[in-house]
């Protein structure tokens, strides 16, 4: 599995890195190079360390190369349910120990499940580092496969789905439903939260085999960032993880799929919402391809902040939307390793409609495709993206997680230092190309979600889009 990705990666890198030598816009004082040291243990665990002694704390992230794409077909939501079970104790450290030790050591912890990976993150005073690594190694070995905790977490996950989806206006349609309609393959288009029935059907045997198959050291990356040297961190990693044997990981199915060739429009009604909303999504370029960085810059130009084309165009000038937010799957423009979406989400005004919002988006995209972007705007967008990238790396927990995720998905933790150069290298012509290639009507999936009270009993012809006014 690794190998196949590595080849793709190298092919992609050669195109991207040529761009990295473009003249740098940012002042020298604005540059930030993160130290990144990588070592692979004998059992296949890759350890990535980024040392920073400015605070007596440390961030830790263990990223497993398994997410919602690889869960069993009759067990939607299982990767996420399993993530919860990783906190429910082991034969050596029963339920309760994990969190008590981390919070009692002054730390904070969490975990999350995405399409391509599942991550387990901690941040704590450096005095607790040995304990955190011991705990992470302990649950990598095995779990306490226990019916009581399974039932407990099935209940908790159902409450999570109620609080985030079923009892919420909009129900997360812009990040849950949109992918179910945009993708063709099951790995990409099923509900990662899962159906209640599938969650209830999960058995201890499922839990056992998932841990055995996907949670070995060879399928994981350990990231450590903060108040520790790489030498010391590698020693600790070896001490706590070195003796865990590698385990065979099932080869992944081929979940690649091309761009869509026909627009999909879905209408939904919402019993809880009072304001209509729309999500429009386009399939993204392949990770590491020559179109990847330009797509990220285009996304930022269109919807990165209040200066963006769509915020100014839809919220301020046309005044048809309350907001415009860009989503990149469940992650960000750089963190994916399979089919993913660039999604725009907007709440729109009651006196307009989905067609008008889409027409306005199309108009702004067409401008970029036709005229490209002037140098001053492009420079501003890049400067903002550079700063944003650094901001996301400030906290040790995010830093550890980012280097571990990059190592997992790109096979290269140092991507964290390459991204600024990739952003820098994007040209106006690149933006024209990706706007024309990806942000097409054929590649678009749209969900228009209306409050029940607003939804017309019969579909009426849509009104023409109002013209832009300044």
């Amino acid at each position: 599995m690794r190998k196949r990705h590595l080849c793709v990666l190298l092919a992609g890198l050669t195109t991207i890195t040529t761009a990295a030598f473009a003249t740098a816009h940012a002042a020298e004082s604005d540059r930030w190079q993160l130290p990144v040291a990588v070592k692979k243990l004998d059992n296949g665990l890759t350890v990535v360390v980024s040392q920073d002694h400015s605070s007596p704390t440390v961030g830790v992230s263990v990223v497993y190369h398994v997410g919602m794409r690889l869960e069993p077909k009759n067990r939607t939501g299982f990767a996420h349910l399993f993530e919860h079970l990783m906190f429910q104790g082991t034969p050596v450290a029963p339920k309760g120990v994990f969190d008590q030790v981390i919070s009692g050591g002054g730390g904070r912890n969490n975990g999350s499940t995405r399409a391509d990976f599942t991550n387990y993150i901690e941040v704590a005073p450096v005095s607790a580092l040995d304990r955190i690594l011991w705990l992470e190694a302990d649950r990598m070995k095995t779990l306490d496969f226990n019916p009581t905790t399974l039932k407990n977490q099935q209940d908790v996950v159902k409450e999570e789905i109620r609080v985030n989806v079923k009892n919420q206006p909009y129900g997360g349609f812009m990040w849950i439903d949109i992918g179910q309609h945009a993708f063709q393959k099951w790995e990409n288009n099923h509900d990662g939260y899962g159906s209640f029935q599938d969650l209830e059907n999960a058995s201890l045997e499922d839990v056992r085999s998932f841990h055995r198959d996907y949670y070995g050291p060879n399928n994981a990356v350990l990231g450590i960032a903060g108040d520790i040297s790489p030498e010391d961190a590698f020693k600790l990693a070896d001490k706590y993880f070195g003796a865990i044997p590698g385990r065979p990981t099932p080869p992944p199915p081929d979940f690649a799929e091309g761009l869509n060739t026909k627009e999909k429009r879905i209408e939904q009604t919402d019993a809880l919402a009072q304001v209509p909303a729309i999500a429009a999504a386009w399939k993204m370029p392949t990770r590491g391809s020559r179109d990847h960085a330009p797509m990220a810059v285009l996304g930022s130009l269109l919807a990165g902040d209040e200066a963006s084309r769509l915020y100014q165009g839809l919220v301020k000038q046309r005044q048809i939307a309350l907001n415009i937010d860009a989503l990149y799957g469940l992650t960000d423009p750089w963190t994916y390793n399979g089919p993913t979406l660039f999604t725009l989400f907007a709440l729109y005004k009651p006196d307009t409609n989905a067609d008008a919002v889409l027409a306005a988006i199309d108009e702004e995209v067409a401008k970029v495709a036709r005229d490209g972007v002037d140098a001053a705007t492009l420079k501003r967008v890049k400067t903002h993206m550079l700063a944003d990238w650094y901001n996301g790396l400030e906290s040790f927990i995010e830093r550890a997680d980012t280097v571990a995720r990059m190592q997992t998905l790109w096979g290269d933790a140092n991507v964290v230092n390459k991204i600024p150069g990739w952003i820098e290298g994007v040209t106006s012509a690149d933006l024209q190309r990706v706007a024309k290639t990806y942000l097409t009507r054929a590649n678009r999936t749209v969900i228009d979600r209306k409050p029940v009270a607003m939804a017309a009993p019969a579909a009426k012809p849509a009104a023409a889009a109002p013209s832009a006014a300044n």
Partner: protein
Amino acid sequence: MRIHNNLLALSTSLALVCALGTAVAGPAAKLPKQLPPLAADKALPVPQIAQKTLANGLQVWVVPRKGLPRVDYALAVRSAGYASDGPDASGFASLYAGLLTQGTAKRNAKAIAEAAQGYGGAIGANALNDGVLLSANALPSQAEPMMRLLSEVAQQANFPDAEVKLAQANALQGLKVSQAQPSFKATRALLKATYGDHPYARSQPTEAAISAVTAEKVRAEHVRRFRPDRALLIVTGRIGAEEGFKLAEAAFGQWKASGEAIADAAPARANADPQRIFVQRDGSVQSAVRLGRPAIAATDADYLPAQLAGIVLGGGFSSRLMQNLREDKGYTYGARGGLNALRDGGSIQASADVRNEVTGAAISEFIYEFGRLNDYPVPAQELEDTKRYVAGGYLIGNQLQSSVAASLASNWLYGLPPEFLGEYVPKIRAISAEQVQAMAKKYYASKDLSIVVVGDYKAVEGQLKEYGEFKLEK
């Protein structure tokens, strides 16, 4: 970091809650023998604050740091927030704060947004109960122009008619978005039960209050609220103290106050008759359960011990509420609670969203945990763990430059001295189990709690009988 325009923070956050996260806790467990020991604690870093007061009364604090390439500015303005909003202007401060960056005498809204983008940063204001926090950040090479933009927004915001109208229209829609969320309705009812007629009860907008806003009113309020003698400017990041003072003097030295300063808000009440309120929400598959009562201000002598008691009760993944309602019972994704102390008062609050079937059972567990905190001293290990949790939180926050700026700013707004931040952890460490229990008896007695439930009354009414007569609201 993106500083959201307040008006849409809610709708925006909707779109950004994209992680299938987890939050976990455990009962008091026995530690495994093989667990390695904690290493020795390192010295607690204390922010070194260079302080100066300009001739016009503006306080300037500079905290040089060696973190990422960024400077952060936080201009905290006292008496400019919700507590200064009139009885008919509920939530006005958030509309006003959002408009600060929508035009100045020199630049329109678009030019401001583009300038911030070009500086590799952001600028935006947030309304708080006790003030407004105008924040900005930029790449180090852009420290000077960003400081100028900050001062331009603070001193020359001109609230164009068209921007006020747009903000108003969007706020009315934003309110509709918020009202569809159970947490918004629950907060509204709990604030009312807690603070009664005090402005702390009115931090949420109403349709009438939004509709009553005019550009003239906003301009007049800006003159009243934004004044150097009521403000603190915090400068932090890759910038030296001298440089910070120089930029601040150049940008803010000529700022002048005009007219009378706003009078301080009256103290909020410390006690209230407990109420039972049910807010009907058709089609709810969960009940949003909230419990609370008024408490104390952040400058009260009881602040830290009362806060520590709240962290034991519902502070983190390992807190009692989380362990009980989530990890033991599986009633909820998250249960939390504790003290929220402000400048003129504060409140004790606890919350969980639970499936309809266990609404009554969840309330019973809340009451049980409040009772347990009253009836028994916190065991030594749990108290020690909680203190370490607090100390760790301080270290984790101190690693982030915007978090240091925000903590210093909010402490100042509450009326706490600058050294409070650095002294916080040692003071927490010195608190005894007896003190925590005394605080529990004083502020965490279940008989004093109001209970608010937002959900489907028909689905849960049978479970509520033993908790008193619930007043039904829409």
